[in-house]
């Protein structure tokens, strides 16, 4: 990508969208990566020659995918309203989630992942529990499993300390310095911190491509923070990589090609591997952006008294 004028940068040359080039200088495009690699690392006098461009392209994209999974820290955020069926369909470029929150009364409240299963598939069964099949031999499925039905209709209690807890709203009373609760069985001794959260809970069904929530999330606003693989839905023109990782991508391509090429000495493959690993480390350190200003901010918390 060529350098652009300030007018192009700030106002996209008067075209829409105006913000098309904002921050673009941090990134190098996939096209630049491939072209630079072919020019500088591939050729008659290089370790790598006679390689098709599509191989270089493949490894470049793979490197970008790997970087997107963790090193980039480029979190995408999507806010949607959860449906009556308590589902949030995962975004089309979703790979993994970072944090899921619900947004209410102007406050973002992080949710916890339910440690219990909250959705299941079911088959229709006869009275003697035999599975019913259709004429094609497939098991007949109900719209909802009993588990899902209970969850969606708000009949499923929660082990979490939210509004679905069986003990939610129970009042206790004090007698001679001790608190007592009208629990059905025994009394609550201590607190299970794992489930001590008042927010709604969720569980991700990866294969189904949805996030299933408990019934308190119906029609509530949900914020999903997630990572993608950087492939921009297959639009090669939009794929970019942070410049801090540019050299790593070149090293990764070299390593992958040398490692799979016949007759390359092991020491050369090793050199490429070390170079790749070292450059990844360097780039991660650079991207972590540790500088005095940030350290100072963290260290200021030192003097706070913890009761």
């Amino acid at each position, binding site marked *: 990508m060529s350098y652009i004028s300030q007018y192009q940068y700030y106002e996209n040359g008067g075209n829409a969208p105006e913000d098309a080039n904002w921050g673009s200088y941090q990134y190098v495009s996939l096209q630049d990566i*491939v072209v630079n690699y072919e020019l500088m690392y591939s050729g008659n*006098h290089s370790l790598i020659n006679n390689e*098709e*461009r*599509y191989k270089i*392209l*493949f490894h470049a994209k793979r490197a970008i995918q790997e970087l997107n999974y963790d090193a980039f820290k480029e979190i995408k955020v999507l806010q949607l309203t959860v449906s009556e069926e308590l589902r949030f369909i995962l975004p089309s470029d979703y790979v993994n989630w970072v944090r899921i929150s619900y947004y209410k009364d102007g406050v973002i409240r992080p949710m916890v992942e339910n440690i219990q299963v909250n959705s299941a598939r079911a088959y229709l069964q006869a009275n003697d529990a035999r599975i019913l099949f259709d004429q094609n031999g497939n098991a007949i499925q109900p719209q909802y499993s009993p588990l899902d039905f209970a969850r969606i209709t708000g009949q499923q209690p929660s082990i979490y300390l939210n509004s679905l807890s069986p003990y939610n709203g129970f009042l206790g009373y004090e007698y001679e310095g001790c608190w007592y609760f009208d629990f059905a069985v025994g009394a609550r001794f201590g607190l299970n911190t794992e489930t001590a959260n008042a927010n709604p809970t969720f569980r991700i069904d990866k294969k189904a491509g949805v996030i299933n929530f408990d019934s308190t999330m119906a029609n509530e606003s949900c914020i999903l923070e997630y990572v993608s693989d950087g492939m921009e839905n297959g639009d*090669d023109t939009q794929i970019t990589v942070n410049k801090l990782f540019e050299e790593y991508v070149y090293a990764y391509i070299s390593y992958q090609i040398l490692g799979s090429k016949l007759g390359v000495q092991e020491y050369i493959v090793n050199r490429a591997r070390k170079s790749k690993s070292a450059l990844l480390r360097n780039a991660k350190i650079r991207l972590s952006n540790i500088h005095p200003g940030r350290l100072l901010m963290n260290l200021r918390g030192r003097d706070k008294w913890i009761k």
Partner: protein
Amino acid sequence: MINDIRNTVLAVLNKNNYGYISPQDFNLYAQQAQMDLFEDYFYAYNYQVNKENQRTSGTGYADIKKGYVEVIDFFSVTKPLIPIGPNYTQYNLPSLATTGSDYYLINKIVINNTLVTSGTTTGTLGGQNKIVDSNANFTSSGVQVGDIVFVVNLIPFFVTVTNIDSNTQLNVTPSVINNFPLDYQIYKGSTIKEVERVEQSKITLLNMSPLTAPSSMFPAYTSEGNVATLYPTPTLGTVVTCQYIRYPKVPKWTYVDLGNDNEPVFDQSQPDYQDFELFPDDATDLTMKILQYAGVSIREASVVQYAGAKEAAEINSEK
């Protein structure tokens, strides 16, 4: 050069009354010899690359490879390819009919699909390197220096904008534009994409993979017969350009009639006259090659042996 070589060949052949070759035979041998040497350039180039990799080749005047590159580039041609049918998927590969010359080797195919403007020329200027269109406004259209002008002629060609003379006139790289009206299309020069050649055995697999499927940024092509198929199908109005190495023109020693000593007299003013296209330093090799063919023709083994030995010695000395 062709007359000098013919004279030398005849001089060697006539020595000891070995024999004589007619102009027709000479022209046949000359064509063959030129093709032999032309192909040798590519092998010699590769040999020099290997020598460089072995660090037994120098730079500056010792850079032998550079000489081969220059010779090969002499035969380089860049021409637009003609689409077959209206869908812009398939294109005719270079040929005498479509680009003016057959190709020996396709070096690259590029596409350009950012159309800036198009129109029809309304005149010409003396320098013949002008695009004149009184109906155009090249400035407001966004035409810039470096943009590519695709001119639709009998054999289409393209030129590059070197200056915007006015709203209605462009200065372009030298080319013969001496008739009008000619349709033209101007493309953004900076948005060019190279199309990768892909083997037939790979293209199906490539298209199946989301990571490697050809895209508008990384397009690909396969060839079948004299047709190139582009992936993905270029958008309407895309200009596809090919840079290739053409075959050398067929040499032809022409003559008028027989002279006083019953010999054909060289005449390079004949319309079908064609000199060798190889460089002068190949004259010796050409002579030896032709001598070998002539020696076989007149069944003189000693001529073949002599020429063969000389050629081998020449090749060795150039390594």
